[in-house]
């Protein structure tokens, strides 16, 4: 089987959850003796000119056998299309040369929805599968389904509601945007959703439930065989791992920690491993500053900086509990898989895909999104609670591996 992965970015160009998932699956496919795997990653050539060659719409990624880049010059980030004749010509030829049996699309960003037309025109019988990594088709607000102007998860995604987030646009534009996605998605054979929540939202939006299969994102285990989890003496070290941006709820975690430190007078330590702080809004950063203003000395906050999946296991081992306080409906929550790998119970908000994954008392605890009081209660319960920690650290199941995820994909392809 010839298997083409068409992704947004490549981890070597820019790291990110969707590109890791795409690359991991490509690698698993490439390692499969029954599969001839090719990867083509769409990128923004203006952001990464070092990967762009003048006049070439598709170029090889150095030192790889079957991995290619497709630098784009422009992208309509509302309708998610490109319509570049040079790229069309190159991609058509690429498809004709490689003749894949299956094409796995991982995104519409910088890929462009019209690529699905082109694929169907060029290879009418190819099987197209599409992994829904986020809610971009439903939500123009970075696909987050979060209403920043209201401070809550968006539960009603009808076009008139979208104007609330984008008052400069009109309802018709959102109707057309939805129509454009649906028109393209009608040409897709199978969708994959990393969580039941994301599937449910897309079914509610209009996709056929029978065409969406839930397959969790596979995880590369970093935990050595026989490794024994350990905790700090006081079991009072909490870690945040993720992007330092508004919707991740760092302020919720800090407020909760401050509340615990103030009410119990026990020491609480928060380690923030957060990247992309430059993308946080000024208001959000000010909000965090305000939380820490005149904080009690029992609250110890350390901003460690960003991390990668190469060192996340070691870093997670330096905390007792991992907090995922997201206020937007996470589609999956890769950090949860990483925490379980490091045998760290997760205190997660019940936001989106996180909700279905956390089983209270088994692999962590959950609280209402945005509720610092709810999280504070959990933190208070967890601090020093060795019995609960030990039970969970030793008994919690791991997320499926990348190989298991690939096997699930193969089963879907064969269906």
């Amino acid at each position, binding site marked *: 089987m010839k298997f083409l992965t068409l992704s947004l970015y490549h981890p070597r160009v820019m790291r990110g959850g969707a590109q890791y998932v795409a690359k991991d699956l490509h690698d698993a496919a490439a390692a499969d003796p029954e599969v001839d795997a090719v990867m083509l990653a769409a990128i923004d050539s203006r952001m990464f000119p070092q990967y762009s060659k003048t006049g070439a719409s598709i170029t090889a990624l150095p030192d790889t056998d079957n991995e290619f880049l497709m630098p784009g010059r422009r992208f309509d980030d509302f*309708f998610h299309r490109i319509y570049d*004749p040079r790229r069309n010509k190159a991609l058509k030829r690429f498809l004709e040369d490689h003749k894949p049996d299956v094409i796995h699309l991982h995104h519409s960003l910088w890929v462009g929805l019209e690529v699905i037309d082109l694929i169907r025109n060029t290879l009418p019988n190819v099987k197209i599968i599409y992994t829904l990594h986020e809610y971009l088709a439903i939500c123009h607000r970075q696909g987050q389904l979060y209403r920043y102007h209201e401070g809550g998860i968006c539960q009603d995604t009808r076009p008139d509601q979208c104007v609330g987030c984008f008052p400069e646009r009109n309802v018709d534009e959102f109707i057309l945007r939805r129509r454009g996605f649906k028109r393209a998605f009608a040409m897709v054979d199978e969708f994959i959703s990393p969580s039941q929540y994301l599937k449910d939202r897309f079914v509610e939006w209009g996709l056929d439930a029978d065409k969406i299969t839930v397959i969790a994102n596979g995880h590369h285990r970093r935990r050595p065989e026989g490794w024994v989890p350990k905790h700090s003496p006081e079991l009072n070290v909490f870690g945040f791992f993720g992007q330092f941006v508004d919707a991740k709820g760092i302020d919720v975690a800090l407020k909760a920690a401050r509340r615990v430190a103030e009410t119990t007078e026990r020491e609480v330590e928060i380690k923030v491993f957060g990247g992309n702080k430059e993308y946080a809004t000024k208001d959000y950063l000010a909000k965090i500053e305000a939380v820490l203003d005149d904080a009690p000395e029992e609250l110890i906050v350390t901003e460690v900086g960003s991390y990668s999946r190469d060192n996340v296991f070691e870093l997670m081992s330096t905390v007792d509990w991992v907090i995922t306080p997201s206020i937007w409906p996470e589609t999956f929550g890769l950090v949860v898989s990483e925490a379980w790998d490091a045998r760290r119970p997760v205190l997660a908000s019940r936001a989106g895909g996180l909700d279905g994954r956390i089983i209270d008392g088994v692999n962590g605890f959950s609280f209402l999104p945005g509720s610092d009081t709810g999280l504070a209660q959990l933190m208070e319960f967890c601090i020093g609670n060795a019995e609960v920690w030990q039970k969970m650290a030793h008994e919690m199941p791991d997320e499926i591996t990348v190989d298991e995820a690939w096997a699930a994909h193969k089963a879907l392809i064969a269906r």
Partner: protein
Amino acid sequence: MKTTFLFRNYAEANPDLAELYGNEDEAALREHYEKYGSVERRGVNLEDYLRVEKVLLSEEGHICIAGWADRRMAESIAVTLVVGYMMYEFGELRDQFCWYHRQDVAEVIGDFERPSGYLFLAQIPDFRMHSEVMVLVNGKKYYSSEAMRWMSVQSFMTDALATCAVLADRPVGATLPLTEKLAPGFSQVWTSYLDRLGFSCLYETGTDREGDRSIIITLYRDTSMLISQLETLAPALSGQPVELIVVANEYTGETALLAEQLAAFSQLHDVCLSMHLCSGNSGFSAGNNYGAKIARGETLIFMNPDIFPPEGQEDQAFAFLAGDPGEGLDGALLYYGDGSLMHSGMYTTADQAVDARMGFSQPVLRVEHYGKGLTAHVDDTEAELAEELREVPEDGLLVTAALWRIRKSVFEEVGGLSTDYIIAYYEDADFCLKMLEAGRPVRLDHSRWIHMEGVGKPKPPMLRTVMWLNRALYSRRFADSPFLAPAATDLFQL
């Protein structure tokens, strides 16, 4: 009561008279005053009673002046324009001025009876541009420039139209007759603007294909919906004997990018497509007329850039594109983006425009859509639709040009869309009435389409004046049409 003529003051203030009559000839001075001096308002500071608030001048000698005057002190106004070595005298202007009531002025000057605001629009024949310009009103300099920045005809037209929005924004009854003062001037400007416009082909593909029908889409500036529209129309275009002609008025985006997008679209869909850019804004009529002129199809389909086949009902919509309108004109059912009914035919009816203070009463026409805003939905069954359309008559109906189907020969015989209407509005109703008056059928096809007309946005001042002028023109043309809907239709039918 004793009345005294202060002849010494009069002589002192008017040295030319003192030289003639001396300071002591009371009788001669009084006679002069009564005959000339009081009429000429000698001794009056004119600026206290006559103001020029705006002067617009175009490179082709169009002039627009706006301001106010106390009519008791400035009964007549003489405008003179000095441009370099040429002096253009309009002489005393009474009828040419468009006078209207201004409350703000009336409160200052104390005259609530006579209109005090004025607008003046004219064109100087055989005009010569120069750097030095002076505008004199009643002999007094009101405007001058030593390095005149002349407006292009387009910017003059835009600014002059915007200046007149002060009238367009009032109830039509209060201002309708005033259009007669301004319409000839604007018509001149509009015609001279249209004359200088041209069209360039930006992109074309598949034009060697034989086709019997042409879809013409005329858009203004905004191409944001174009690719979406083409995508949804693609099944009806791909490999079909249909050409699609897009005419863009005043496109301000990147032309190279637009051409690339169209080329990329053509790679994915086997279409016959061309796009033509107008050098300015030729308006709805001239844009569509141009599309019709270059169309190769026997049947023309005029389509707005925000018309889409309904999702899941494309086939019935595309059937409209394939049908033959015969000797008539066909429109279609149009629904808003949310699926509710927007158009199921139109009628035109007359109201009486009355302004008791100005002393006039005359008919003004209005165009209404049947069924607009009803709960009818694009997904309704045929039976539900039949019930919803029960009050829509088959005869004497008008249909919106947002979507039309007509044979090219018929379109040309009727004379195309009238370019007398500035930019847009009322030209489609005009065309429908001409069709009806010529005994040709105008029909509503029951195919359903989406018209992404969206929520109305505030219209800019110039466009409000355009609507006002066009409505007045439409009213003048068709006030006596036998196809006006009776009052009962207007009051009770929907």
